[in-house]
């Protein structure tokens, strides 16, 4: 069944905040095989002009995926997550994320389109810091594969 287009424009406000920790940044850097000292060594990060270790550019996915869960699990929308594949993704960093940041994320449904039996759902996650200043905008296009797409 196609997704309900009236969800476009809907906002899921932040639920709690995300505390960015040094060890989580290190763990993420290890998982992407990146040995850059700026992810691990506070002195190296400070030498490069940052207040603390910096997060890799795609680290924000941890926060945007958590925000996206509210939509994915919204019974009203009725999304079958086993049929979802990620079509596109982008990040715009208004400033770098670093250890010590306390971030909140609001999720917006920007568009829903149906093409060739598949639904394309475009969502935007606005991540802001404790003072409300913008940090990162994450955009995802999710493809919900239609049942006719099955072999």
């Amino acid at each position: 069944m196609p997704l309900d287009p009236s969800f476009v424009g809907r906002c899921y406000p932040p639920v709690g905040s995300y505390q960015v920790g040094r060890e989580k940044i290190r763990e993420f850097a290890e998982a992407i095989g990146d040995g850059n000292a700026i992810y691990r060594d506070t002195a190296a990060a400070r030498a490069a002009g940052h207040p603390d270790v910096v997060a890799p550019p795609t680290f924000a996915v941890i926060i945007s995926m958590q925000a996206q869960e509210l939509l994915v699990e919204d019974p009203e929308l009725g999304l079958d997550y086993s049929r979802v594949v990620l079509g596109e993704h982008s990040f715009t960093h208004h400033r770098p994320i670093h250890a010590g940041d306390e971030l909140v994320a609001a999720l917006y449904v920007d568009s829903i389109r149906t093409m060739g039996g598949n639904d394309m759902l475009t969502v935007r996650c606005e991540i802001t810091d404790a003072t409300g200043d913008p940090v990162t905008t994450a955009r995802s296009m999710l493809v919900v594969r239609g049942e006719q797409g099955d072999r």
Partner: protein
Amino acid sequence: MTRRRSVDVADGDELPPLQVRLTRAGLIRYAGASGDFNPIHWNERIAREVGLPDVIAHGMLTMALATRLVTTWAGDPAAVVECGVRFTRPVVVPDDDKGVLVELSGKVTRRRDEGTVLVSITARCNGQNVLGKATATVALA
């Protein structure tokens, strides 16, 4: 790590290429680090049930590798102010010790105002592109 300087960068410059071998163990490590525990990234039975040929890598892991190519070149990862990709083909990761090789390359395609450049990234696996329209905007020193 110092940020690469704008005066040292020209249109058409190629970034040092990057080759990364992805294994099942690597996918599980990324699942834990990112919080994305979708079973299609670690369970063959479920991957096949939803019509995939086998376990596939997280698209966001492939994107992270594409971005790593750029941050390594840029010196300071905070120089990457924007990055975006389209996922065109899944990266299938076999259940063996070798895994699969992902080959990344990049090129400076456009200089913008105020010392920022656009880098186009290519990610290939088994001779095929797995990302489309993969770009990063880098703010140089």
